[in-house]
């Protein structure tokens, strides 16, 4: 029995712990998939389509097989009977078109980069060399590159069934009434450009098949989902597949996928009876890792003269790319619940059409649907404020849900559990020095300063903690949204924590240790967190959608509850007391009224292991397993403010200051939370200013390297001022999630700042990324008036590379296209 004076360990929640996982990451001892070497391992290299759209008329891999060091070479036809079709787990409507998606193309290719043949060789150089010996003939077909014209009659077809995949609509309230006689009606068309997620670790796969048992190591976010999907695609019994996600170098949604290379690695390992490995090059990855965003958004808003919102009507065209991958069609739908954001209104309609093109499929990228929606609403709120001559923060305050109105059910049907938009906005205003900047802006505008100051606002919220299983079911998603955790109490009192949430940079090993330390009252250092291997953590839903803490963290709490419940019975026997008389204070049971008498969880663990004196019928184990399914999403929110200097002579945009006030509920580890906010903001700024996946008129990706696709460097980004407000979520930890907040918030903050700077010059919009050229052209167009439309046409021609020139109901507004 322990000394009664022993105080419980200090609370870990809220403590800025440096991370446990750093020890291997900063010393070069990390276990990346590309580091794995197995005896007899062979290397794969893929031949990829140079055409956006073509029939494959013949493939001959025999010459490749003759190359030195080559063990095998295969075309799609060689696997036609067993490769199946890559899965789409989110058939959003009953009549959705989900085309067959063979991992290796057999008859037809539909995007540049699609795999058509594979060489397996002794080393990666030999495999790459032998690709050149493959003879393949194509009959080119017309590409389909612009979603605004892809649905026109007479457009070439990506698939026989046509270019429309689905149309999905949500409506609530009387939209017609809201717009009828509305004093103000505004319509804008915004472009969400196509992005490349660009995790720093390229994809890598190693597969082995021994005696019919498969092991796949993959740089994936989703070992558990991947295992299930591999079984469903290949027919290999699920119990014979083990998936391991070793250290994974970032994902941002791009590794939330079941890829052609993963499926083929498994099948080739089986066929050859030898382990195989594939690691993509960055250029290969830019073409063939799923892309993100890519929407045209037509938004109409109706308001009263005082700015009160009456109705919102959103019509989206979403580029699916050539096929539907794991959650491709579901991504824009996540935005359906977020266009109304933090605002109250009478009526809302959301319509989304998913359109096929001959480009890389799109899928989840950090925020997935919610950044797109937040951009649309926050941009049009600024436009509405300008139209009404209202201060944009004042317009927002007139429409947002007041802090005393929570819980609040929004027009899109979600119930926000908590929030305080007033508090976050007040803090952000103060930190930015908002009023002073507004004064400076007015003075400089009056003086005709060629460098214009702009202030951009983003009062955002998001739905995260994906997700209540019943909600996912109602949206036709193929799986649930629960998470699993188990606790193993070791005889020495140390703890192994197993989580189904698979980390790839988020810091689970540290944050999970902090949560369990508090729940069980054991030291942080005594806890080891295990994840990312279906044999170690057999059950899980993996990591995406800012779900790990709000869902996986709660599963941990439930698992700890069960340990404590079991320990109580054994503690009572140890102390010869009644369980009903015991009190739990973190880490220790004591007899109520006699705190001197107690046993620690470590002592109980040892007694349980020995099992000498357990009560009848009590099993000698404290271990537990819990699966948590949330009742609701969580709703982080915040106010991000951005001040930009826009040089009207060069078009150069410089971020002068950036303030982020986030409300993510209770914070487990402020160091980790701040890091997530920083990185999220950087990715959102990157969308606003730098990044775009560009295809040419033939459907060739032009941005295949990091020299063309501008992931920003330290020199391209500002320093961020961050702060937090806190309105706890309804779950027991009070946590909401932070993985995507920064990315969702920052893009509209930056673009709103640019337009705020240029609106006095008559510039109504600049299409992202707001490069100096685009900004400069927009200024010229506004200045030149009629001549400006010529500049716009020039710009439109330039942007045809990605957007085409015959908008179908999505024509950018006059002057708003550049």
């Amino acid at each position, binding site marked *: 029995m322990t000394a009664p004076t022993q105080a419980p360990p200090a609370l870990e929640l809220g403590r800025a712990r440096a991370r446990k996982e750093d*020890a291997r*990451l900063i010393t*070069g001892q990390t276990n*990346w998939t590309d580091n794995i070497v197995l005896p007899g391992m062979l290397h794969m290299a893929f031949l990829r389509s140079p055409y956006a759209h073509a029939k494959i008329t013949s493939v001959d891999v025999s010459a490749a097989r003759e190359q030195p060091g080559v063990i095998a070479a295969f075309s799609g036809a060689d696997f036609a009977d067993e490769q199946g079709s890559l899965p789409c787990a989110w058939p959003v409507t009953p009549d959705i078109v989900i085309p067959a998606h063979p991992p290796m193309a057999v008859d037809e290719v539909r995007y540049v980069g699609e795999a058509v043949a594979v060489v397996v060789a002794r080393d990666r150089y030999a495999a790459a060399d032998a690709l050149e010996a493959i003879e393949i003939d194509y009959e080119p077909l017309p590409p389909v590159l612009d979603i605004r014209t892809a649905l026109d009659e007479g457009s070439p077809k990506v698939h026989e069934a046509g270019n429309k995949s689905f149309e999905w609509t949500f409506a609530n309230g009387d939209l017609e009434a809201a717009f009828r006689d509305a004093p103000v009606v505004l319509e804008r068309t915004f472009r969400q450009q196509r992005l490349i997620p660009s995790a*720093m670790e390229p994809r890598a796969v190693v597969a082995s098949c021994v005696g019919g048992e498969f092991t796949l190591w993959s740089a994936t976010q989703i070992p558990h989902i991947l295992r299930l999907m591999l079984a469903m695609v290949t027919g290999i019994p699920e119990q014979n597949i083990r998936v391991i996600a070793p250290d*994974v170098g970032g994902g941002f949604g791009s590794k939330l996928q079941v890829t052609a290379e993963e499926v083929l690695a498994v099948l080739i390992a089986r066929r050859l009876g030898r382990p195989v490995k594939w690691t993509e090059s*960055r250029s290969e990855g830019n073409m063939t890792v799923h892309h993100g965003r890519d929407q045209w958004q037509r938004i109409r808003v109706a308001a009263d003269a005082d700015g009160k919102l009456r109705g919102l009507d959103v019509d989206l065209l979403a580029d699916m790319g050539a096929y539907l991958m794991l959650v491709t069609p579901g991504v824009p739908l996540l935005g359906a619940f977020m266009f109304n954001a933090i605002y109250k209104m009478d009526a809302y309609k959301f319509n989304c059409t998913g359109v096929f093109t001959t480009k890389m499929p799109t899928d989840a990228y950090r925020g997935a649907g919610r950044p797109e929606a937040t951009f649309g609403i926050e941009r049009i709120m600024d436009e509405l404020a300008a139209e009404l001559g209202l201060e944009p923060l004042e317009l927002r305050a007139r429409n947002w849900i007041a802090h005393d109105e929570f819980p609040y059910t929004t027009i899109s049907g979600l119930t926000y559990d908590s929030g305080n938009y007033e508090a976050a906005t007040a803090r952000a205003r103060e930190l930015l020095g908002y009023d002073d900047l507004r004064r400076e802006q007015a003075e400089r505008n009056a003086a005709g300063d060629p460098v214009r100051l702009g202030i951009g606002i983003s009062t955002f919220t998001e739905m995260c903690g994906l997700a209540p299983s019943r909600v996912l079911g109602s949206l036709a998603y193929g799986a649930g949204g629960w998470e699993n955790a188990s606790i193993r109490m070791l005889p020495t009192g140390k703890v192994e924590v197993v989580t189904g949430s698979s980390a790839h*940079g988020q810091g689970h090993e540290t944050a999970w240790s902090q949560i369990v330390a508090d729940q069980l009252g054991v030291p942080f250092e005594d806890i080891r967190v295990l994840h990312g291997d279906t044999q170690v953590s057999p059950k899980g839903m993996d990591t995406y959608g800012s779900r790990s803490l709000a869902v996986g963290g709660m599963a941990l709490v439930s698992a700890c509850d069960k340990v404590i419940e079991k320990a109580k019975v054994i503690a009572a026997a140890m102390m010869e007391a009644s369980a009903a008389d015991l009190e739990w204070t973190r880490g220790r049971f004591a007899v109520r009224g006699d705190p001197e008498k107690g046993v620690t969880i470590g002592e109980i663990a040892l007694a349980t292991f020995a099992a000498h004196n357990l009560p009848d019928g009590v099993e000698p184990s404290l271990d537990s397993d819990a699966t948590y399914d949330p009742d609701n999403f969580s709703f982080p929110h915040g106010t991000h403010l951005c001040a930009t200097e826009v040089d009207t002579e060069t078009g150069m945009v410089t971020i002068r200051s950036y303030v982020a006030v986030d409300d993510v509920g209770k914070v487990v580890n402020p160091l980790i939370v701040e*890091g997530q906010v920083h990185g999220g903001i950087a990715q959102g700024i990157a969308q606003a200013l730098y990044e775009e996946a560009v295809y040419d008129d033939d459907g060739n990706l032009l941005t295949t390297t990091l020299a063309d696709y501008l992931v920003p460097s330290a*020199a391209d980004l500002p320093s961020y001022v961050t702060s937090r407000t806190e309105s706890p979520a309804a779950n027991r930890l009070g946590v909401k999630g932070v993985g995507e907040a920064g990315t969702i918030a920052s893009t509209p903050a930056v673009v709103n700042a640019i337009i705020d700077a240029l609106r006095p010059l008559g510039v109504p919009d600049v299409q992202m990324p707001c490069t100096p050229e685009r900004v400069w052209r927009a200024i010229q167009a506004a200045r030149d008036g009629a001549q400006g439309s010529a500049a716009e046409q020039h710009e439109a021609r330039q942007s045809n590379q990605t957007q085409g020139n015959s908008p179908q109901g999505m024509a950018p507004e006059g002057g708003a296209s550049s």
Partner: protein
Amino acid sequence: MTHITVTVDGAKYADDVEPRLLLVHYLRERVGKTGTPIGCDTSNCGACTVLMDGVSVKSCSVLAVQADGADITTIEGLAMRGEAGGEWHPLQRAFHEEHALQCGYCTPGMIMAAADLLRDNPHPSTQEIREGLEGNLCRCTGYENIVRAVQRAAESGVSS
């Protein structure tokens, strides 16, 4: 095949290599130094940065034959290893303490580039750090904490 002799993290290696073999592949696949990762194929990302005779190079842009006779330091050789498992380099400590890494993929290259930056400029301003690390991309951190970590290491006198 060309015969080369290279010192990597204090140990000498003599190997026959194909003239086209990249230094990073030599380090990872022949010497077993997998602590140095590869992030791109156009020398933009800097994940593979190592020190060659004390100066940072992107090891994807150097051929193994060019390293003949050179002294290479990778992230694995940066820590001052001792009996008790080694002591971290001040930059490694600073990256840990300032939470200057998340997924950690860019970290080896970022730390090696920062080591060269501080050798060149022991007391850089934040702007000089940002510009000095321009050749190294990070997708997770937004760079804020990387800048802080390099500052912290500089304050601890890492270059001396």
